[in-house]
């Protein structure tokens, strides 16, 4: 069953990327450029499960020539978990640290940009290695952009408290189309397919099986599809509207709809305020149940696989002063961002995030 699904998925994966690649290589117009910059950010997350994460990140986007560029990212997640899954054995809570780094190299050939990169993420009980490549091409006086990409991940979850690690392999491919519709409207459509093979149960959460708390058992194979549609619209009086919709479905029968809408306004040419509302609703997987009896093939206590609806409220302020930031310390065009988010699910789960970032543009070469 799983093997035939995989055989069905592979030509689609390859087909999608080849199609995007072919479209990208046919002749077109002017290329767009990513602005070189240094981004230093600090994110904080806390939720009602007792998990708190503090996450500083550094993002460097730099160009070497007008045709080549390098993107480098480094971050640390300092995690303290006093969640039900940890408290069982660690009464004082548990601390973990995830370190991740990624690098990607961009090369432009006329109006086509090719990116090759990788990411490594390491923490106690989990190691993830990813290699990725993508290609994009603009057409039509840069009004249309077609892009496609593929990534391969080799992940190693450790079955804590046991010492041995399982293997998990994930493949991911996407195609996207970005189209300027008017001088003030731009839309993007995307399709993504992903397969995950290997261990996908959650070693930290125990389901109630015949009254006994047992580590869950999830299928070894998962095929996921995602469709996205996004819109950005400039409105009168320095106001902007954004709308995003994502449809998700997989072969575990989990289907989700995520819709978000936001409004930004410039109170001065240097200060913008944005408010966003996101609604998410998902079904459970076919093997989801609050408790299990008998000997089911699959059973889980992973709350991510349960049905629920949630709302997310985001507020963001971006300040980009003219002249220099902090009296000459940073170059012109630098900006600071502050963001606050509140998340609320109808199963009682709540989360809060606070983020801040500093953006420093770099000279173009």
């Amino acid at each position, binding site marked *: 069953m799983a093997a035939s699904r995989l055989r069905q998925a592979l030509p689609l994966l390859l087909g999608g990327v080849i199609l995007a690649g072919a479209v990208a290589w046919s002749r077109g117009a002017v290329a767009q450029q990513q602005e070189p910059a240094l981004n230093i950010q600090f994110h904080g997350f806390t939720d009602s499960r007792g998990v708190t994460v503090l996450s500083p990140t550094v993002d460097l986007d730099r160009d070497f020539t007008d045709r080549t560029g390098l993107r480098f990212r480094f971050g640390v997640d300092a995690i303290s978990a006093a969640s039900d899954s940890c408290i069982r054995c660690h009464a004082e809570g548990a601390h973990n640290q995830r370190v991740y780094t990624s690098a990607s190299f961009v090369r432009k050939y006329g109006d086509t940009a090719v990116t090759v990169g990788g990411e490594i993420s390491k923490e106690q009980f989990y190691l993830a290695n990813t290699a990725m490549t993508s290609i994009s091409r603009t057409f039509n*006086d840069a009004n249309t952009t077609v892009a496609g990409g593929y990534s391969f991940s080799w992940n190693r979850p450790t079955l804590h408290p046991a010492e041995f690690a399982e293997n998990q392999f994930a493949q991911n491919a996407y195609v996207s189309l970005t189209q300027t519709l008017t001088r003030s409207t731009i839309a993007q459509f995307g399709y993504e397919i992903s397969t995950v093979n290997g261990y996908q149960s959650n070693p930290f959460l125990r389901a109630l099986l015949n009254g006994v708390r047992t580590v869950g058992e999830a299928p070894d194979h998962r095929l996921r599809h995602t469709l996205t549609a996004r819109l950005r619209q400039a409105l009168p009086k320095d106001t902007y509207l954004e709308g995003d919709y994502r449809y998700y479905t997989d072969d575990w029968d989990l289907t989700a709809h995520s819709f978000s809408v936001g409004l930004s306004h410039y109170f001065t040419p240097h200060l913008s305020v944005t408010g966003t509302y996101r609604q998410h609703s998902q079904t459970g997987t076919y093997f989801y149940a609050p408790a299990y009896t008998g000997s089911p093939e699959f059973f889980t206590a992973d709350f991510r696989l349960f049905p629920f609806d949630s709302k997310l409220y985001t507020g963001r302020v971006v300040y980009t002063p003219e002249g220099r930031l902090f009296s000459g310390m940073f170059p012109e065009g630098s900006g600071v961002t502050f963001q606050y988010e509140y998340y609320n699910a109808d199963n009682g789960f709540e989360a809060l995030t606070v983020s801040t970032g500093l953006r420093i543009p770099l000279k173009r*070469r």
Partner: protein
Amino acid sequence: MRAVASLLFLLGLSTQAFAQDAITPAPAIELPAEAGAPIALASLKGKVVLIDVWASWCVPCKAAFPAYDEMYRKYKDRGFEVLAVNVDEKRADAERFLRDRRHVLKVVFDPKGEAPLKFKVRGMPTSYLVDKRGNIRFAHEGFTAKDVALYERRIEALLAEAP
């Protein structure tokens, strides 16, 4: 099968020829300057003119502006002119940019985009070097610091030509 068909269809898309550097007469333009009075390109015949199509929202344009102003100061006594054609739809955006930047080059305003249409601009910024007879000799898209030496070589070559 359908994937193959759409693949062939896409490969057959008509291509757009890229603007070539060719010796063609520069289109006639006459646009209002900062002081208010209009400047016509025809009135600058006999001089080497750098026409820069720029906007306040274009990041490389912001780096190009002071560089072109420097070039103007350097060569203006030898018969060189710079015409910075601003295409901001809102004049206030352009004026905010110009307010903090001392400049001697000539800025003209073209909110309707007549000049870039006539010059067939393909990307922002684009600059043109017009010789003493009024012909476009070089067109250049984008701007990086390395372009300055290239421009100066071309300007010197055009200045050396007979009118």
